[in-house]
């Protein structure tokens, strides 16, 4: 709303209305929402890790992963409710089920996953009802990956350029970031003798994450800029350094307790940085009309040229004078 804002936008090759954003910046707040992206991912990937650990005879890792999952998803729900404009109406999420709304799908997923993850952790901690604990463990392991992945659609299914344009890569980036976090936390919490699955998951996750990020940035073109500049750029860069460092340390020294713990901490932090980076990149892309208008203008010009190639313009519709466009910037 400050008048200085228009100075942020370079005097333009594209038209804009006083440099003001075309779309609204998301009202979702930080740290609640990027925090949820991180914690939801951590939980969603920890649950299958817990199941794998339990059924391969690694109770220490299973307990750590189940506790992590339950704690992370509990915090997530608190963050989500607190971010609502009307928190006391959080249950309105469950009035309807709408596949066209990733948030609706997510609410139902959380209602299935949350109790399962909580029950799995409660049984593991107390040692009570082992059979029910196993059922809950499997239920959480099956629904957890969906919880980790759907948040990509939640961001991508918006008009925010840096999120929407990334809709192909974002789900893979999110689940790999989730795997990095869950594996990393396993490395941090569990002795190396029990932590093999966590180490493997962290290695797979971190490698996939680096790959998905570079694919995303390559394909986005102009809209990749928000991921590479400002606060988002710094976060993404820090995340990449931490991922690479954690990956290397886990691969080389993952059987040493200290090195494994340090590698794990780096990987957990990298996952959090990635989520915050993606969140702020989206906000920035929404706040700058260049990212909304630029790609749309190019698309429209391409379409218009294509249309003219097929058929002549309708009678009475003169072709647009090229000088007319962009004369707004000068108009002020």
């Amino acid at each position, binding site marked *: 709303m400050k008048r200085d804002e228009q100075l942020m936008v370079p005097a333009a090759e594209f038209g804009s*209305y006083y440099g003001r954003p075309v779309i609204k910046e998301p009202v979702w707040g930080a740290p609640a929402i990027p925090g949820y992206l991180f914690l939801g991912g951590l939980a969603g990937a920890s649950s299958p890790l817990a199941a794998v650990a339990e059924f391969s005879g690694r109770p220490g890792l299973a307990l750590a992963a189940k506790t992590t999952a339950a704690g992370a998803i509990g915090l997530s729900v608190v963050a989500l409710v607190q971010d609502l404009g009307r928190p006391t109406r959080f249950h309105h999420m469950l009035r309807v089920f709408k596949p066209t709304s990733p*948030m609706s799908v997510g609410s139902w997923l959380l209602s299935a996953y949350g109790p399962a993850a909580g029950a799995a952790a409660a049984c593991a901690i107390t040692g009570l009802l082992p059979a029910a604990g196993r059922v809950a463990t499997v239920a959480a392991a099956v629904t957890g990956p969906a919880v980790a992945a759907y948040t990509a659609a939640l961001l991508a299914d*918006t008009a925010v350029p840096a999120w929407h344009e990334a809709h192909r890569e974002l*789900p893979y980036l999110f689940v790999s970031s989730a795997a990095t976090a869950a594996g990393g936390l396993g490395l941090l919490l569990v002795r190396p003798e029990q932590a093999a699955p966590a180490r493997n998951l962290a290695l797979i996750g971190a490698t996939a994450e680096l790959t998905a990020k570079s694919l995303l940035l390559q394909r986005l073109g102009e809209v990749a800029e928000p991921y590479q500049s400002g606060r988002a750029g710094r976060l993404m860069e820090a995340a990449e350094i931490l991922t690479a460092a954690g990956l290397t340390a886990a691969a080389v020294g993952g059987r040493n307790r200290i090195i494994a713990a340090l590698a794990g901490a780096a990987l957990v932090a990298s996952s959090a940085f990635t989520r915050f980076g993606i969140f702020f990149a989206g906000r920035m892309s929404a706040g700058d009309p260049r990212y909304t208008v630029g790609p749309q203008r190019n698309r429209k010009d391409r379409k218009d040229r294509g249309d003219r190639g097929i058929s002549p313009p309708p009678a009475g519709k003169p072709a647009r004078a090229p000088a007319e466009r962009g004369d707004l910037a000068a108009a002020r």
Partner: protein
Amino acid sequence: MSLDPAARSGYADHPPRMGFFTDTSVCIGCKACEVACKEWNGVPEDGLELTGMSYDNTQSLGASTWRHVAFIEQIDHPGQPRWLMASDVCKHCTEAGCLDVCPTGALLRTEFGTVVVQDDVCNGCGNCVAACPFGVIGRRETDGGAHKCTLCYDRIGDGLTPACAKACPTESIQFGPLDELRDRAQARLETLHEAGVAGAQLYGEDPGNGIGGAGAFFLLLDEPEVYGLPPDPVVTTRDLPRMWRHVASAAAALAAAALISGLGGRA
């Protein structure tokens, strides 16, 4: 895809689709539409700021601004300087992103084909705000809920004209059945082109566009972005089926990665 959003939403027997045609070529920037809208709908004050943006101190549409008159001073316009004015409003899209993503069902399609927020259902999740390709809908600080133009649902149900159109002194804002408005707009466009107004163009009315056609469309004298409108918006949910497929395969990949991680025998 059906172009009749009311029928698609399950209204078997419904009145014709109603909308706005905002002809900016006759807008005089009086802001009567802004005032009438606020008065009728009880929309609270939306900030008192002097922006320096010509006569526009309203700035943009939002939770408490349902009509917004834009002012553009084009000093170097070829021929002679000109002053463009345009009253912007919710587009009441045929394919409405806000409505698609709303997780509570607070946003609904009316029998008139318009899009309305039910305030008593909205829990302020903010998803609609991020999904609107026009930056129309906003979340109000004071009550936490999402708000936008209702196309005066309470008036048109009684056969009245929406407040903004009723107050418009130049018929820049025209209200009526959408089919009729489209014909009228086409005729007006031809008149302007014959008169040599080269930049005149219709915005949003084409049912083949990225939002399936707007229920509230415009006649502009310059490119849409000059007025702060997106030049070629596409509703985000058109890509959602593909997103769900990627989400499903990503989730499966995560489950597979966890399984693979456990290989190598028991501890």
